């Protein structure tokens, strides 16, 4: 056996087919690959390390303030008695109202653009503008909300004005996510439905919308989770920072978590800074929960086809 192998090697030219150590040129190629891998690992580590440092810092500072009073007490001049209650309620109200406005209008626009509109210069213009709107700084939306909802429509500094402003802010993202989800419905399913004598509306209602719902919901939740972290547009429309009561309806004045956090940080006392850290932990928890829900929904709806 070994004899045979040796004969073969001899026939090839008396050398081993594979050298014991790779030649220099090949080694250099392997080195370059290794260096690139290390660079890539460094890049991901920079992100992760900063995130961990931030989280640890916030949790360490805020941990002692993460107690029931944080959720049951209104803001106060005294750190011991200060809590997030009105901000939490405000955020919840704002979230629900924003979803109520942004979801139907966003989906309606997405359905129109994907299913009904003819491809011409006008719809192209709309499409470009929606993409642009998604990139407009949020403070601009705040100024629009201040001029339109607070003053023109006379909604004042109410939840309603805040939610409408936020709805405008997230709508482009909802529309883009909705369009992508609708476009992902395979044309074979549409053809199957049309082939049975379905009208356009029946195809949309029975097949396109159910199949794209997962993607639409995911996009909407991610857009909303961006909205609850927004501060600038709400400060612009005058969301107050010192609210010592629960909002009772959509026309009450309000505050939200990021504004409350911002307010505490701007105070001189160290206790308030730690309170702010606790507030950040709460806000991050809500954000991560929403994002997890979005990921869960996406996975769940995807399994169906």
């Amino acid at each position, binding site marked *: 056996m070994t004899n045979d192998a040796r004969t073969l090697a001899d026939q090839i030219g008396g050398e081993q087919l594979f050298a014991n150590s790779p030649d220099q040129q090949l080694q250099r190629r392997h080195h370059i690959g290794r260096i690139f891998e290390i660079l890539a690992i460094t890049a991901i580590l920079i992100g992760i390390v900063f995130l961990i440092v931030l989280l640890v810092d916030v949790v360490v500072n805020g941990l002692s303030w993460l107690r029931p009073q944080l959720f049951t007490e209104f803001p106060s001049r005294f750190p011991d008695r200060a809590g997030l209650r009105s901000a939490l309620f405000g955020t919840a109200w704002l979230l629900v109202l924003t979803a109520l406005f942004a979801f139907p209008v966003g989906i309606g626009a997405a359905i129109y653009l994907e299913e009904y509109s003819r491809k011409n210069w006008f719809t192209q213009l709309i499409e470009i503008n929606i993409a642009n709107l998604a990139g407009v700084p949020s403070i601009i939306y705040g100024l629009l909300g201040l001029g339109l909802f607070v003053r023109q429509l006379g909604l004042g500094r109410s939840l309603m004005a805040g939610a409408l402003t936020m709805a405008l802010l997230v709508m482009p993202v909802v529309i883009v996510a909705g369009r992508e989800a609708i476009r992902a419905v395979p044309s074979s399913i549409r*053809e199957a439905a049309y*082939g*049975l004598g379905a009208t356009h509306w029946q195809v949309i209602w029975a097949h396109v919308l159910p199949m794209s719902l997962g993607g639409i919901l995911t996009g909407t939740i991610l857009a909303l989770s961006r909205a609850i972290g927004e501060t600038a547009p709400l400060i612009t429309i005058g969301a107050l920072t010192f609210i010592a009561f629960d909002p009772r309806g959509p026309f009450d004045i309000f505050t939200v978590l990021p504004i409350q956090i911002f307010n505490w940080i701007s105070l001189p006392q160290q206790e308030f800074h730690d309170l702010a850290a606790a507030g950040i932990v709460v806000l991050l928890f809500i954000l991560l929960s929403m994002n997890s829900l979005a990921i869960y929904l996406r996975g769940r709806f995807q399994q169906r*086809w």
Partner: protein
Amino acid sequence: MSISLDFQLAKRNASPSASAANSPALDVQGLDVYYGHFKAVKDVTLTFPAQRVTALIGPSGCGKSTVLRCLNRMNDLIPTARVEGEVLMHGQNIYAPQVDPVEVRKRIGMVFQKPNPFPKSIYENIAWGARINGFKGNMDELVEESLRGAALWDEVKDKLKQSAYSLSGGQQQRLCIARAIAVRPEIILMDEPASALDPIATLRIEELMRELVEQYTIIIVTHNMQQAARVADYTAFFMVDDSRTGFLVEYGESDQIFTRPKDKRTEDYITGRFG
């Protein structure tokens, strides 16, 4: 093997009445199809006899699928598509302005190349088409009847609530056929219905076509000439010219097309000299 012999037998028995006495199911007159400025098909005139299987064959890009999709106005869904000429059903042009394409597609069903069941239960796949068309009778009966009609009932009767995606490719395609017949069309169009299936499943679909043709008119596009010879009573051969426009070369009874083609080009194609 014996199954395919049975086909031949069934076809021959049907053939004598396939003469001129048989009323036309669809009558295509001078059909031109454009996609934008591109002329995809030119001047197709042919008559599909009722309760017969007619096959459209020809090389890739010859417009056979385009012609098929014109027969139930499926091409209307492509924004740039434009159709000239007439497609007459019981003497009425389905492209007449007052005709609703939805109504046309209800009477002329379609089965596609890749099985495309809805992501719903087996039962719901069949019930949906009937329901949107206003079916008011006993749905359970309709589902059973349609599944029996597509030779699928015995395989799925115990799992009607399961997802249609749990079925094999061949079963899914028969489910799509069951779904089509649940709407009670007169004509069923099939666009290469077996090209995504294995040989056994293909045979079952072909067998099924011979059964269905007792009640329905079937028009099938296929790139498989043996399949056309096996299942089709009539065969239309299409080709494509230098400007990539498809046209009809020869149309006649399958026996004649495959054994005594009149046109040299048909002969070249069926003997495998090109395409």
